[in-house]
């Protein structure tokens, strides 16, 4: 089992707020790691640290045996890391196909335009956006924009895919669709970290779950173990419904 990504004591502070405190974990190749925690727990900040958007103040991030603690997001992309954003960031005035081509052109395979267009069409087929390929990305609805984010990330053919709340704001049939898509991506051999609030989905899909609360890593383990973990239930107590949902998974 090769370790794809390794975090060693990663900490990040924003002024008086300790957003991440000593986060440490290893992610083996081919796994899906679920990242959960109450609002403001530091989940997206952790993505931003892994991705190079906000370099951490302490700790090291090792990706494919290289230290990427202080490198820029484009370096990470070129090394084979791709991500989607919680708040979708489409390139509005470009077509859907062009959006995906950007991912293919500048990701770690560094494709030329002709190949990138082919990859874009394949990936759009995969996420079900083929009929929209020639529309401007700005004209898509939210569910489609989430799929576009995913398509752009996949077109880079990454080793590691960071999915930030791809299920938020989707209705239940859209969620089922997206979950199937995530599982299919794993079958292609891509390692995934996903931040998710839809507990049922994340519990079903993940091999392992990491729970953050106030920037601290309070639990890590299999979905079953996490659902029984007292610290996790306590962290969610401010939101009893979520705690219930967690318990229901047993």
């Amino acid at each position: 089992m090769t370790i794809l990504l390794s975090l060693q004591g990663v900490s990040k502070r924003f002024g008086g707020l300790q957003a991440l405190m000593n986060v440490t974990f290893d992610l083996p190749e081919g796994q899906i790691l679920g990242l959960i925690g109450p609002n403001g727990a530091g989940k997206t900040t952790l993505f931003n640290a892994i991705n190079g958007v906000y370099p951490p103040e302490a700790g090291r991030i090792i990706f494919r045996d290289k230290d990427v603690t202080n490198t820029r997001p484009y370096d990470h992309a070129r090394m084979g890391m791709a991500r989607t954003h919680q708040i979708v960031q489409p390139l509005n005035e470009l077509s859907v196909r062009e959006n995906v081509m950007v991912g293919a052109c500048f990701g770690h395979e560094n494709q030329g335009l002709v190949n990138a267009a082919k990859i874009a069409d394949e990936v759009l087929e995969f996420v079900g956006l083929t009929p929209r390929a020639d529309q401007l990305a700005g004209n898509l609805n939210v569910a489609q924009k989430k799929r576009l984010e995913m398509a752009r990330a996949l077109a880079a053919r990454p080793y590691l895919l960071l999915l930030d709340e791809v299920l938020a704001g989707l209705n239940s049939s859209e969620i089922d669709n997206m979950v199937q898509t995530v599982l299919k991506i794993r079958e292609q051999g891509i390692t995934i970290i996903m931040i998710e609030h839809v507990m049922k989905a994340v519990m079903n899909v993940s091999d392992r779950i990491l729970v953050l609360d106030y920037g601290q890593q309070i639990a890590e383990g299999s979905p079953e173990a996490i659902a029984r973990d007292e610290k996790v239930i306590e962290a969610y107590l401010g939101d009893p419904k979520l705690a219930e949902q967690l318990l229901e998974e047993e």
Partner: protein
Amino acid sequence: MKLWHRYSGLILPVLVVAALAIWPLVTGKPANRESAFTILKAVALASSLNMLLGYTGYVSFGHIVFYGFGGYVGIFLLTEKDWSLWTAILAGGIASGILAFLLGSAILRLRGAYFALATIGVNEAMRAFINNFDLFGGPTGITLNFSVYRTYGGAAQALQTSFYIGAGLALLALVMSYFVRSSKFGLGLLAIRENEDAAEVMGVVTPNAKTWAYVLSAIVPGMIGVLFFFKNGNVEPHDAFPLHASIELLVMVMLGGQGTVLGPILGALAYQGMRGFLVTSPVFKDIQLSVSGALLLAIVLFIPTGAIGWLRQRIPPLRRVLA
């Protein structure tokens, strides 16, 4: 057929420039040649600015600095070092490119309005510097010795040659613009324009891409500067770095349609046509700059994508031809 399709976006722009180059020949009037030269110069400058403004999304209020700086370097080499017009033009372009590279590395970290303000500062600082730089003649500038024109077959012939070089440079600018637009590098620039943070996350090496876009957008203006001041016979600080000319360039690009190859060309044509009418009209001749200011305001408010952008949105089949 395939080739035709591939370069279909280049056809209209090339035809427009060719028509401008032939127009004085057909009508046979020297006055027409001067108007055509002014338009070709505007086409070259606007197309160059478009690579930064339209593709990369960075508003430069001081793009004329490259025209002035390149012009000064070229004219200096032409008069003091006896370089030929050709090598001086080339040197002017390279000098402006290097200036853009150095400036870009520093000020392209700024975004939005801060970058725009910095570009104004750069233009004014350059003007003040040249004003006090004795090698370039300080406030009086550099005047060409009339005998220089003899090498090019006398003054009349030199003007004629300059006109064709001008047409060539306009063509160069739009071919550059077209190939950048349809390249992978260009796709990266468009991604930066739409969302710089997202582009960076997708792997676009944004500092390099922006700097090279800035360099490319500076080269032809530098060359045009040398040609214009050669034709003019002298170069002075206030002719070389006029802030209002930078703003007029913005109006041209935005009027025609930023981010398209044809847009800045049509914008330059339309703007120069309007300007020609305004400066000769008794009512408007003193307030023609206010008219372009009002025009810029109207474009930004009502057709932010410019004429070509407006057409492309309404008639999708035109997209292939109106690249």
